[in-house]
């Protein structure tokens, strides 16, 4: 008899939930794990200063977030997708097919990508894009010939670098960081070493040559990290010769174990990135479903709060954590308050 009573109460709970499920009163955000720290800082301050409940921020990667964003309009879908890269044509189309047509794109600032190794490890102090291409490119130029990469130590191609085994830990392909790394480091290095020219001369089309430039050797010298920076850090901790790719904010929180190298002679700091001197940086975005503004309480307020000077400005908590604030923040603020969608200004 007990179980009959239990079942009845469960049914009652289920009935209540079905009716209550209709009202969602908190903003839901998902997407890039690079943007997550910033979004959580904003969400926390938002919850403290407004009467709305604290927004929920999930991670999972830019692509996964945008995919969920494009599932459709309605309370069971997310309101905001965080992304460490701009939305792609293909994704805009997928969104439109699911009925998500009006999307507001908000650029929150810039993030630097840094190259760091164990603090007491070999002296990796200065890199050029060419070094990284020679270290981990699939095919490199040796004596004017394109050959499969067989370099074993850094000193083999650049005598200024330590003579230790190549062991790099780079973001896996599901991370937005990987794309920036490929474009700004590998492709650049490919052009600098002349490998790209050699590829085109050998009869490749320009697109094929670019793809070949961004291919990474697969003999275990370079390891893709699919997890977060904490995993990269753990790998570096256990391998004195390892060099890893990190976000600037993560490095700044772990300066006690990591030392950072310059890229093309520039040290990565919020200042050098803001001025555009440090070459490897990328903008960070979030995308808002316009259809949800006015339906989900606090959505527009959250977006406006995110880009306000107090939060995203050069002295705000985001900049303190490692975000490079956007010099054009005022334009972004206008855009958010006017609810300008992507189609209307492009």
């Amino acid at each position: 008899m007990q179980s009959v009573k239990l079942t009845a109460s469960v049914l009652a709970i289920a009935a209540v939930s079905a009716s209550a499920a209709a009202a969602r009163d908190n903003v839901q955000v998902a997407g890039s794990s690079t943007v997550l720290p910033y979004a959580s800082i904003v969400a926390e301050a938002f919850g403290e200063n407004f009467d709305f409940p604290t927004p929920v921020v999930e991670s999972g990667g830019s692509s996964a977030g945008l995919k969920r964003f494009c599932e459709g309009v309605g309370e069971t879908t997310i309101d905001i997708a965080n992304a460490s890269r701009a939305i792609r044509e293909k994704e805009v189309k997928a969104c439109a097919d699911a009925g998500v047509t009006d999307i507001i794109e908000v650029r929150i600032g810039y993030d630097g990508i840094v190259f760091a190794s164990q603090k007491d490890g070999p002296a990796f102090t200065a890199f050029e894009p060419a070094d990284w291409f020679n270290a981990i490119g699939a095919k490199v130029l040796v004596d004017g010939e394109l050959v499969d990469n067989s370099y074993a130590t850094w000193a083999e191609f650049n005598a200024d670098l330590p003579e230790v085994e190549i062991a790099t830990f780079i973001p896996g392909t599901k991370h937005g960081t990987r794309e920036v790394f490929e474009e700004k480091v590998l492709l650049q290095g490919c052009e600098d070493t002349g490998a790209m020219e050699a590829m085109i001369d050998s009869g490749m089309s320009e697109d094929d040559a670019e793809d070949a430039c961004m291919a990474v050797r697969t003999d275990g010298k370079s390891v893709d990290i699919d997890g977060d920076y904490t995993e990269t850090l753990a790998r570096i901790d256990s391998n004195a010769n390892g060099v890893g790719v990190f976000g600037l904010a993560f490095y700044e929180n772990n300066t006690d174990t990591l030392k950072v190298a310059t890229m093309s002679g520039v040290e990565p700091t919020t200042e050098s990135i803001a001025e555009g001197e440090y070459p490897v940086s990328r903008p960070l975005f979030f995308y808002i479903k316009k259809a949800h503004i006015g339906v989900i309480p606090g959505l527009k307020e959250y977006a406006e709060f995110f880009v306000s000077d107090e939060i995203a400005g050069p002295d705000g908590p985001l900049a303190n954590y490692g975000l490079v604030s956007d010099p054009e923040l005022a334009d972004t603020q206008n855009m958010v308050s006017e609810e300008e969608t992507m189609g209307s200004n492009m």
Partner: protein
Amino acid sequence: MTDATFSGDAPKASGLLEADARTRRRNASERRFRMYGLAAIGAGMFFLVVLLTAIVSNGIGAFQQTFIEVPVYLDPAKLDKNGGRDPAQLAKVSTFGYTPLIQTGLYQQVRDAGIETGYEDARDMKALISASAAAQVRDFAIANPDRIGDTVTFRILASSRVDGYLKGRVSRDSIAQDKNIDAGHLELVDALREDGALRKRFNWDFILGADASESRAEQAGLGVSMLGSLFMMLVVLFLALPIGVATSIYLEEFAPTNWMTDFIEVNISNLAAVPSIVFGILGLAVFIQFIHLPQSAPIVGGLTLTLMTLPTIVISTRAALKAVPPSIRDAALGVGASKMQSVFHHVLPLAMPGILTGTIIGLAQALGETAPLLLIGMVGYIATNYPDGVISGFLSPNSAMPAQIYEWAKRADPAYYERAWGGIIVLLVFLLIMNVIAVILRRKFERRW
């Protein structure tokens, strides 16, 4: 017997006092086997001790937190320009308006105590104070408008770097490259500690508080995710127990023996071995995408974990029912009870201890499960609001204890690493309590025939 009997002519003696070669070999092999067993237990114990030592030594720090006592002057000119003391007006001043007041308060306190510093500006105190302090002071001011204009002493959290310094995680060497704090701040921390304004205390907020953002490791707590776990366990208990017990009773007592029952039995055993992440994908597809239950909600987590726990409960319940001797059933039927009466009046009460033990073990397993929760959106910056009531407890977004620990372990600030270990201690305490309850129930109600 004398020596003479054995010494000369009986090399293959097989008396009771002296074993022959074959017996010695057998005895030696038994001794070896015992040694293997002891070595296995020893290795197990060794790893257990290493594990517990690592957990406790890494995590115990999370239960203490560094606090600073700061007198803050609630300046009416800044907080209430109109002078009406109206809470709606006061709420217009954001936490950013309160931060300078706290920094000034601390700076004043340092100067009044006669501590020599190289700092000329109250804003240099920022490195010492947690960003959470502004919200604490603001909440106080809005709740007590009449205190504006007074100097109130607050016990506020110190920043995670300062806390790390008191716990030995941060040193002057390790902050050499740190842009948030410098060696002068650590001197100041030492001076304040001698002065008595800054000290470590037991931190209830770690156990009862909500999650915090990446920049405030010092504020983060496990309390909200604990509630998330509680609501999930309620769902699991109220669904898995009746369904599991009903299934077992039918299969064990009523079902005819045919290929259909065999098929169901095989499948239940197989389900128990399915990896938990599979149930997560199922939960995402069925409960969120098909039934449209809200994302990140404990009810979805609970339903998913119910699926995972059911086979465990069914298997242990059936074992408990089987252990009740047939004579009990026969006696009940013999005095004229119906089949159902014999089951509910006699068999089920006797099987109860076994069923409860199985249920508690199943719940403990579900409590420690993270993988399925990854897929239904319960990992992230989620466990921030206490639910307003029972219904919102089931439906509003929340995390769970193991998911919260996983999330902390991913974060950049090393202070979160300590909290992840601390969270493991709390989780282990819960699991231990549940297992102890299971043992006590079994001891108390168990009957042997």
